[in-house]
């Protein structure tokens, strides 16, 4: 016997089909209205070309969107999320099917009758149970385990949504269960329905019919309530996450230009973010997409040492601010409402080391560095309001061409006696060694430069340096928001490269490497840039160098942010260490893309710091694995970690070395 559809009955003299239509129309129009409002907010944003590299975007969408690749980085939460995500996809189809079946008598989804239908029904019914269980565990985690990263999140919304999911599952179970009994059907593999059948057994026909109808209407109503709750809450990510993943930033090493589509900064009258208008549409989409999971903040080095920065809070504050100032039923003041000093405080802005750990962790690819730098740009370039130490650094970079304030006349002093070729004397070289300001002026980093030169000489490489014509690369200026100064410095360097017809550049400093490689091309730089570790590995591979000596020590490697996360070079330095005879590699717990910043990035090497220092925390993390030698591949990491070791009074017991130095000692 086939059961009458709940919509086939009439309620208070009104046909159920009409009721379904009414719910559908009301639910959809409210939803469209809210989405329209949200879309209008996105439309205030500035342009951002995110339609290139479609292949990469589609594959990212599949891997990071549908396959949720980043979720299991937090195992328990990740698995729960994957279950609920896939449950949504499977059960969303079912809910739609239920809804549509209530619109016309006898209407059913195509394919649902055949084999696909029965397989689908079994799968979806299994998912009902799994999602139900996952949601309950999720509630348990929030309420009992209370992971620290959920602090300050909108907890009520989270519980509400989990309860709604549970409610959707239960109504579905009772709808299907009562249907099975009323239809005298065995139900086959419908596990969830079978389960509810047990609780419903013994009920009268009328009672079962009421349960059946009641759960149907509750399910539909909850469905629309839920749908409309999405764009009003942090659960907007259910709609925006996949687009956000699709439109993710492809070239992570390069900071966003002050405005997309301009050739240089002179075309602009204002630079940076003052109000919502100055965000790009993608940055606004980011705010909508934040799920408040707190993985970003959990991995933020500044947050770890109690600095007033929490990437999650930045997204939340800016989203809430956006909604508040573009209310649903009036026009709001979003175009003029100020952000800096009101929503975002300067202390937050200047605490960021631009290490990228937050962006690496975010399951929906929200970008933070570009926004923070854009906000810094407003403070630096438009208001001239920023920490004093930075001003000193700017003046030195602009006047002397280096942040150390030593000047071109002293730039070559480190190379005395090395018999080095400068391009001024002979521009016929295969590769240019970009020494960088640290390599040229800091006495510790000079040792690395000397090691690298000896190594290149041993390998018989025809290389040269720019000598006195090398200038600050501008990384510091750019990341602290002084785009104007960056362009001055970068253009000067690009001119020099082109003057000597430089085709290939190798850099020991990851900051210079990243800037030259990823950021100079926009200003017209055309050359290949590789990092010293890549080059060394290539020389080892070509047998131009060989590691002969033994090093029976426990070695660890600290991933510099600008080599690792920003440029994806994780394996090459490890391969080099593995080629050292006798070397025993120990990995700190936070390694590779989870590496913890040394504390120097984003301008922090030259800024005052109070409270606990990031480099000391990182040193503690590394020392847990009891290495005898700590290696890294960045002059700033080197100094910061050496300083960390010194603060532990372990100088001499644990050595801090650049990989370049280790290699040059082993050949």
């Amino acid at each position, binding site marked *: 016997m086939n059961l009458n559809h709940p919509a086939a009955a009439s309620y208070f003299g009104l046909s159920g089909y009409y009721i379904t239509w009414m719910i559908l129309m009301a639910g959809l129009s409210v939803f469209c209205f809210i989405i329209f409002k949200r879309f209008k907010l996105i439309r205030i944003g500035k342009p951002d070309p995110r339609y290139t590299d479609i292949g990469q975007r589609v594959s990212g969408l599949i891997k990071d969107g549908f396959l949720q690749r980043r979720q299991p980085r937090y195992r328990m939460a990740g698995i729960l999320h994957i279950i609920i995500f896939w449950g949504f996809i499977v059960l969303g189809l079912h809910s739609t099917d239920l809804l549509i079946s209530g619109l016309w008598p006898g209407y059913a989804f195509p394919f649902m009758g055949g084999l696909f239908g029965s397989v689908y029904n079994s799968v979806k019914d299994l998912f009902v149970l799994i999602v139900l269980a996952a949601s309950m565990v999720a509630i348990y985690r929030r309420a009992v385990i209370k992971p620290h990263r959920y602090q300050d999140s909108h907890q009520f919304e989270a519980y509400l949504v989990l309860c709604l999911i549970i409610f959707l599952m239960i109504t579905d179970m009772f709808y299907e269960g009562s249907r099975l009994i009323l239809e005298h059907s065995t139900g086959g593999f419908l596990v969830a329905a079978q389960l509810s059948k047990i609780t419903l057994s013994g009920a009268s026909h009328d009672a079962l019919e009421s349960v059946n109808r009641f759960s149907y209407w509750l399910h539909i109503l909850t469905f629309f309530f839920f749908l409309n709750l999405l764009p009003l809450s942090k659960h907007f990510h259910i709609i925006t996450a996949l687009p956000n993943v699709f439109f993710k930033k492809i070239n992570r090493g390069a900071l966003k230009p002050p405005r997309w589509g301009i050739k240089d900064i002179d075309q602009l009258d204002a630079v940076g973010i003052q109000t919502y208008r100055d965000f790009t549409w993608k940055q606004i989409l980011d705010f909508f997409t934040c799920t408040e999971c707190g993985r970003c903040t959990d991995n933020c080095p500044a947050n770890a040492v109690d600095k007033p920065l929490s990437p999650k809070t930045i997204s939340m504050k800016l989203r809430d601010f956006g909604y508040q100032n573009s209310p649903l039923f009036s026009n709001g003041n979003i175009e003029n409402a100020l952000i800096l000093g009101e929503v975002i405080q300067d202390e937050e802005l200047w605490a960021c080391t631009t290490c990228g750990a937050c962006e690496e962790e975010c399951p929906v690819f929200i970008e933070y560095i570009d926004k923070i730098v854009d906000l810094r740009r407003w403070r630096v370039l*438009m208001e*001239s309001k920023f920490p004093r130490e930075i001003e000193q650094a700017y003046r030195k970079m602009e*006047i*002397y061409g280096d942040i150390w*304030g030593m*000047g*071109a006349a002293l730039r070559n002093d480190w190379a005395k006696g090395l018999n080095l070729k400068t391009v001024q004397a002979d521009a016929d070289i295969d590769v240019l060694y970009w020494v960088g300001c640290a390599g040229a*002026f800091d006495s510790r980093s000079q040792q690395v430069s000397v090691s690298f030169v000896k190594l290149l000489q041993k390998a018989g490489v025809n290389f040269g340096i720019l000598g006195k014509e090398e200038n600050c690369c501008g990384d510091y200026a750019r990341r602290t928001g002084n785009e104007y100064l960056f362009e001055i410095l970068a253009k000067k360097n690009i001119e020099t490269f082109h003057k000597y017809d430089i085709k290939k550049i190798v850099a020991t400093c990851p900051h210079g490497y990243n800037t030259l490689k990823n950021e100079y091309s926009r200003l017209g730089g055309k050359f290949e840039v590789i990092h010293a570790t890549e080059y060394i590995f290539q020389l080892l591979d070509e047998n131009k160098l060989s590691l002969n000596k033994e090093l029976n020590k426990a070695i660890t490697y600290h991933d510099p942010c600008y080599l690792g996360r920003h440029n994806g070079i994780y394996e090459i330095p490890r391969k080099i260490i593995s080629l050292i005879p006798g070397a025993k590699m120990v990995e700190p717990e936070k390694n590779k893309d989870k590496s913890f910043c040394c504390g120097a990035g984003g301008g922090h090497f030259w800024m005052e710091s109070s409270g606990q220092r990031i480099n000391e925390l990182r040193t503690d993390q590394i020392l847990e694995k009891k290495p005898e030698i700590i290696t890294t591949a960045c002059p700033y990491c080197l100094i910061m970690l050496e300083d960390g070791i010194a603060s532990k009074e372990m100088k001499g017991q644990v050595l801090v070395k650049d990989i370049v130095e280790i290699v040059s000692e082993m050949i």
Partner: protein
Amino acid sequence: MDYGGVMNVIVCVKQVAHIYIQSGFDPSTKDIVTDGLVYRVNPYDETAVEEAIRIKEKSGKGEVTVITIGPPRAEETLRWCLAMGADNAVHIVKDGAEKQDPWMTASILADRIKEMEYDLLLFGKKAIDDEMGQVGIFVAELLGLPAVSAVAKLELTDVNKALIQRSLEKGNREEVDCPIPAVFTVEKTLNRPRYPTFPARKAARTKPIQQLRVTRMDESLSDPQMNIVRLAPPKLRPKKILSPDSNLSAAARINFVMTGGMGQKKGGVVGGDPKQLVTGIIDFLKEKKVIGT
């Protein structure tokens, strides 16, 4: 504070080569080798420009005019001052490398300034390259104006009077008042010059700069009052110019670089309730043997 009247301020600035840059000495010019030098606004002059702009901003009326004498590259210095907020710039272009003593410089400047309208003339106390500190005072002499040097605090009390604190040795201050128009040469402690914004720098690049050739002033040039006989390099003190010792902590190294190699001053802060404060201070004084035990 409202100064009442219009304040037109003229600031004379100099582009200097940075002193830490060790490029060697050229016996033929009796000067340091200019190849590879880096140039900047003399920091004292920058302070003077900042003060002039603040005076203008406070009174809301008047204009700031910067004047420099120098080769074509000195235009950068004027552009920087315009970006800071100066309204007009005059560049007295001097070609050739021959040295010019302070008296000659002052007479060229005075010759130009006497044709201009001004209420106040500001100079840096000295230039950090030759450390003469004379030009401002000579200009005052040539224009018949009062001059106050080493101005560490400047207050314009009414339309034609200024209250000034001069910095003396060991942190002592001398307070003087002075009628204006006058010439003031300022200390770096007077203020902290601003870092120009991007729109200001962009606008400054295209602002007109009045250019005068040095030939026009040849007639007014008097003979140099002094000649440089020889310039001697300092005895080498490698510690001061070398990069910081890598044995220092990063923080100490940054401090070293930022302060130009000066060590941190020793000192302490006592905290706590009044009783603890008193005990702390007494202990300190005892320790330093200022009071008996």
